[in-house]
């Protein structure tokens, strides 16, 4: 191995950023980048002029990537956006922007949507202060309030944001009585937790590191043109698919046959593949488990042991030197090496971050040129650790500080060993380190001093990188860099032997899936918006291959989106780009547009994500029957007509009372057309019918799951309350793996008790038996002590893993019982022992237990 005989001059500043005696040189980064540029000048630059430099341009064959497979059957929900989390409006522009979390709105939404959770315990405590019966109370205590009269006063109107809300003396007394208790407990207990939860979600929105490394892998087949794409599918990303793909020289990639799949019990976060000494291995990381398969020459995966990571695995990598070796790192700060001979051994453990204190528990490990030396990385730096040496020792390879002239707030997002790429590695000692600002190439023989730094200017977090073999012999090697929002950069690295690695040509940005919108036919706004959302879905995996290394330099690029779509694009290396002024623009072929419209048709057939969950409403008025004004139902239009004829202002009394089932102000505005439909219906006087319809629709099969989701989104922090009230456990159908099965889908879901009661009452309208009904109704409210308990202890169950050897059509079906996806990372880190965080479960030992015989466990609530 040659070491570059002469390195590029660099000033070396040791220590952290911003110390008074060390000048902050970060502002000079761009200078250095600029000044690196003329290095690619050819020798004869004096006479030739600068543009003689070799340029490398990969020309996309289509303006954007195309979907490879038809859309999956599961609807996709984009999840929370900045709009859901941040305070809207009133921002003053700042050079350094600041986000303000909107806790107030979320809290009020929570109180509306989950009033049972928020107030029931207190309600229970205050039970003696309320009188439920209509009968007069004998006690003259001022602290007892009659529910009937209170509700009467409220008049069915929900005074949230209503300036006309009328306060009776009873209400005032009630608020004096309950105010301090209700206000304090909710605000202090929930507010803090909510803020914490929102902060976590906001951080996740800014940077979701779960998919670091990418969940898409290309497993090469017998020829370079045929291979398998391995990726997770299904709504929960828990089905590991093996899709055979053939790449033809003329057209697009073709998916051969239906994909084989392995059902897992947890979401797949990372898929890694590597061919070492002719053996292809496939490693998969889930949140709490890592699994390894050996892929035979025919493409059949055979399971190898599964590792359990108690504290959550953050990274997995396969050794490029020795077949079957695997490095796993966990949130506890431990790095373990798994070898076929010695099994699992912990090689490093440090709960603290390397260089300075950082709260992130993200860890990463990769191999180096020495098969027994690993790199261990976290947000602050990267260390080289000898697995055979004494524990704890190591050498810093990269420091997020002055050494690499980092910027303030710069953090490591990805580290990758680049030497593994066959045939002939560039420098077998090079490591790629990506931060949110820059890309660094570090040689492990010269720690701390990056060999190359390039400002990538990506508008989202770069979490995937792949170094490809040279497209032509003697060509620089393409390095693909992918970011979370689908942005791609293609760089060329050159410099073998005794010369230092450097960039060849100007880096290039490649089209992302949102550029493909023009290939689809124009739609009406709602569908267009849905398509747009789908195309904009964040990327969670990236794979690339050069299918014809001998003949033509073509790059096939696959991108997996969070919605489960795989996009494919082909890029052709341009023969002589130096001569052209404009980069040529590709256009859509008729075949491509035809394919896109077919794909779109299939997409629109997929049921849209269920409508936004609305709080259940209780029609107090109907229950109590004292505000009986059913006759007024059709009064509205007549009153309106009368008012219009009379030319006077329309008043409340003309319209009669509001429709009694009027929903409370929805926490989130539904899709626009719903509103217009409702307005239309109201205008035509069929408001009630519309509402009936709407009720019927929203209590359809998808509703409970949506409710469940919404709840978990918000309530995952409120674990302190969950023991007492766990409605979602009782109401939601179990998730994976049954989720995918048609039986589970066709089963009518159980309606939440509150809904049930509401609708029953709505349908029957029973004012005559109001006393009894009220009692029933109150009994159904979760004030009683018989609500399900104890389901929250899912963490202590320490889910074990089992593998079955039942064969499916093509592949060995393997059911691994993994714990369900956890929405909060923090929640996962709370309990579980400090000691061994990783445990290998040999699959053979458990193979005798068929997956079906496992008793159906109640779905634990996320984050509880």
């Amino acid at each position, binding site marked *: *191995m040659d*070491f570059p*005989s002469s390195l*590029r*001059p660099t*000033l*070396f500043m*040791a220590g952290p950023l911003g110390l008074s005696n060390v*000048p902050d*040189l970060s502002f000079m980064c*761009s*200078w*250095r*980048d*600029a*000044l690196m540029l*003329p290095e690619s000048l050819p020798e004869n630059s004096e006479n030739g*002029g*600068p*543009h003689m*430099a070799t*340029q490398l*341009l990969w020309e996309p064959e289509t303006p954007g990537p195309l979907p490879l497979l038809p859309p999956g059957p599961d609807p996709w929900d984009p999840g929370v956006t*900045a709009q859901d989390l*941040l305070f*809207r*409006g009133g*921002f*003053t*522009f700042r*050079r*350094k*922007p600041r986000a303000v979390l909107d806790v107030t709105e979320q809290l009020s939404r929570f109180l509306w949507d989950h009033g049972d959770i928020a107030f029931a315990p207190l309600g229970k405590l205050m039970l003696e202060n309320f009188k439920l019966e209509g009968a007069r109370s004998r006690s003259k205590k001022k602290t007892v309030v009659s529910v009937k009269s209170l509700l009467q006063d409220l008049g069915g109107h929900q005074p949230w944001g209503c300036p006309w809300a009328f306060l009776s003396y009873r209400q005032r007394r009630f608020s004096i009585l309950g105010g301090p208790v209700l206000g304090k407990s909710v605000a202090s207990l929930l507010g803090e937790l909510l803020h914490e939860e929102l902060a976590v979600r*906001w*951080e996740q929105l*800014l940077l979701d590191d779960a998919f670091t490394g990418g969940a898409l892998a290309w497993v090469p087949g017998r020829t370079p043109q045929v291979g398998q794409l391995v990726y997770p599918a299904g709504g929960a990303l828990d089905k590991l698919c093996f899709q055979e793909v053939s790449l033809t020289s003329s057209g697009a990639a073709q998916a051969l046959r239906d994909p084989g799949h392995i059902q897992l019990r947890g979401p797949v976060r990372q898929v890694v593949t590597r061919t070492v000494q002719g*053996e292809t291995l496939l490693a998969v990381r889930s949140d709490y488990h890592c699994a390894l398969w050996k892929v035979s020459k025919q493409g059949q995966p055979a399971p190898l042991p599964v590792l359990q990571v108690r504290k959550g695995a953050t990274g997995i990598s396969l050794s490029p*030197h020795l077949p079957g070796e695997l490095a796993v790192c966990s949130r506890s700060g431990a790095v373990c090496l798994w*070898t076929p001979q010695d099994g699992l051994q912990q090689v490093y453990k440090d709960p603290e971050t390397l260089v300075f204190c*950082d*709260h992130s528990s993200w860890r990463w490990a990769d191999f180096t040129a*020495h098969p027994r030396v690993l790199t261990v990385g976290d*947000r602050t730096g990267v260390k080289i650790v000898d697995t*055979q040496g004494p524990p704890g020792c190591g050498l810093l390879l990269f420091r997020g500080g002055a050494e690499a002239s980092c*910027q303030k*707030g*710069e*953090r490591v997002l990805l580290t990758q060993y680049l*030497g593994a790429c066959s045939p002939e*590695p560039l420098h*077998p*000692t090079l490591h790629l380190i990506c931060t*949110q600002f820059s890309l660094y190439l570090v040689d492990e023989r010269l720690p701390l001093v990056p060999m190359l730094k390039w400002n990538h*200017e990506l*508008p989202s*977090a770069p979490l995937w990188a792949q170094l490809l073999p040279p497209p032509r012999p003697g060509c620089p090697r393409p390095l693909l860099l992918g970011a979370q929002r689908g942005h791609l950069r293609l760089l060329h690295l050159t410099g073998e032997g005794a010369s230092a690695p450097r960039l060849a040509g*100007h880096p290039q940005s490649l089209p992302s899936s949102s550029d493909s919108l023009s290939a689809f036919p124009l739609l009406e706004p709602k569908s267009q918006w849905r398509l747009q959302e789908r195309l904009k879905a964040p990327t969670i995996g990236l794979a690339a291959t050069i299918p014809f290394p001998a003949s033509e330099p073509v790059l096939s690029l696959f991108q997996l989106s969070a919605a489960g779509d795989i996009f494919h694009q082909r890029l052709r290396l341009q023969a002589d*780009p130096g001569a052209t002024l*404009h*980069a040529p623009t590709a256009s859509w072929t008729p075949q491509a547009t035809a394919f896109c419209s077919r794909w779109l048709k299939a997409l629109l057939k997929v049921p849209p994500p269920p409508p936004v969950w609305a709080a259940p409403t209780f029609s107090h008025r109907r229950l109590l029957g004292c505000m009986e004004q059913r006759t007024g139902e059709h009064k509205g239009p007549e009153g309106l007509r009368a008012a219009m004829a009379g030319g006077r202002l329309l008043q409340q009394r003309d319209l009669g009372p509001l429709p009694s089932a009027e929903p409370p102000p929805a926490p989130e505005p539904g899709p626009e057309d719903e509103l217009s439909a409702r307005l239309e219906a109201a205008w035509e006087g069929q408001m009630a019918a519309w509402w009936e319809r709407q009720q019927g629709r929203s209590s359809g099969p998808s509703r409970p799951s949506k409710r469940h989701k919404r709840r978990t989104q918000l309530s995952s922090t409120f674990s302190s309350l969950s023991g007492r009230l766990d409605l979602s456990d009782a109401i939601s159908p179990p998730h994976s793996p049954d989720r995918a099965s048609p039986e589970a889908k066709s089963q009518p879901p159980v309606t939440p008790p509150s809904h049930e009661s509401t609708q029953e009452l709505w349908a029957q309208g029973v004012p005559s038996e109001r006393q009894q009904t009220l009692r029933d109704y109150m009994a159904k409210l979760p004030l009683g002590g018989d609500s399900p308990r104890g389901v929250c202890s899912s963490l202590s169950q320490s889910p074990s893993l089992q593998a079955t050897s039942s064969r499916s059509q093509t592949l060995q079906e393997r059911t691994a019982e993994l714990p369900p996806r956890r929405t909060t990372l923090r929640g996962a880190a709370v309990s579980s022992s400090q000691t061994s965080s990783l445990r290998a479960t040999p699959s053979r030992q458990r193979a005798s237990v068929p997956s079906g015989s496992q008793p159906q466990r109640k779905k634990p609530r996320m984050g509880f």
Partner: protein
Amino acid sequence: MSDFSEELIESKTEDDQEESYVFSGTGMSFPWLQNHIGTIATGGKKEKDFAQTTSACLSFIQEALLKHQWQQAAEYMHSYLQILEDSDSHKRQAAPEIIWKLGSEILFYHPKSNMETFNTFADRMKNIGVMNYLKVRLGEPGGGFREGTDCMEHWLWCKNNEYCYRKYLLFVYLWGICCLWTDEDDYAYNAASQSMLNHSCKTSVNLGALIQTPGVWDPFVKSYVEMLEFYGDRDGAREVLTNYAYDEKFPSNPNAHVYLYNFLKREKAPREKLISVLKILYQIVPSHKLMLEFHSLLRKSEKEDHRKLGLEVLFGVLDFAGCTKNITAWKYLAKYLRQILMGNHLAWVQEEWNSRKNWWPDFHFSSFWAKNDWKEDKTLACEKALVAGILLGKGCRYFRFISKQDDEVLRKKIKRIKKSVENHSIVNPGL
């Protein structure tokens, strides 16, 4: 030096005063934060129209560059120059740097640009406050070096003042890179030429000062040592190289040790001295190609611990993925193993082997490699087979595969290997 832009350094301060973005204690900054906030901002004070258009223009330029649309980028650049009139002093001050950086990139790749356009651009940049000496190099090779030398002197006096020191470092940094632009060959040639000799006195002072600043200064150190040697100042050269290699403030640069070693070798220094230099290099980069030379030195040494280290070094080289096909290393190891085992130092071999016995067999001596090596390089396969036989015994896959091969040319050699394995294998030392 009048062109040295002070603003460049001052531009930092304004940002520092502003409350830095820290969110829920993470301390991480997100370049894409503004985009997220931009999607929800509905009211409040907006960025000025001017700022909006210029920042949009900047992003267009960057996008065009990343799509290799040089023509388009040039057109946008034309409009972007209006930023020089921005009323925001922070932006106005940062602008020349951005313009210079993007402009030179565009001109570098634009098919219609030539040296003349580049020079014109650089001249204009001078007027708006970018250090112009960078351009000099583009015009005339070697010129930048001379000018840099003059500037260097100017800045040396203020090294004690902290404010000046920052500038000094910035200068050293930029000047160093400026010098890099001067091709090494150019410099070597110029250093010997008459014109450069006039400057060399000054240069020696300045270069000496530069390479005492912590950093990687390989080309300068090389040239400086060359120059000192040219003048016959060998002690000075040795001192420079020793400082460069052993100063703790410097990063552990393998080349520093290589230069020192090569210098000592040229000086015909005693073997002991050479070994001590390479010992440190061995600790930093055990895979360096000089390690084979190091091994030869150790092998010839009389000291027992040196001979033991010689074995360690060979094993160390072959640990690395990039060295697995290094036939010299395998040859040395095969030969040395036999030599050591004949010298009754089985313990040395076992000591090295113990830490490797659980991964070397798969790493080097798997049947995959046996087939592959035999197909690609039969000599290498033979050497490896001998080592495999000695370390793992006759039963090992690699040795068995190679010994079964029937090759007319290598028949004799394979026979010899078999015999050596019989005699020296460490697996059954008694037999």
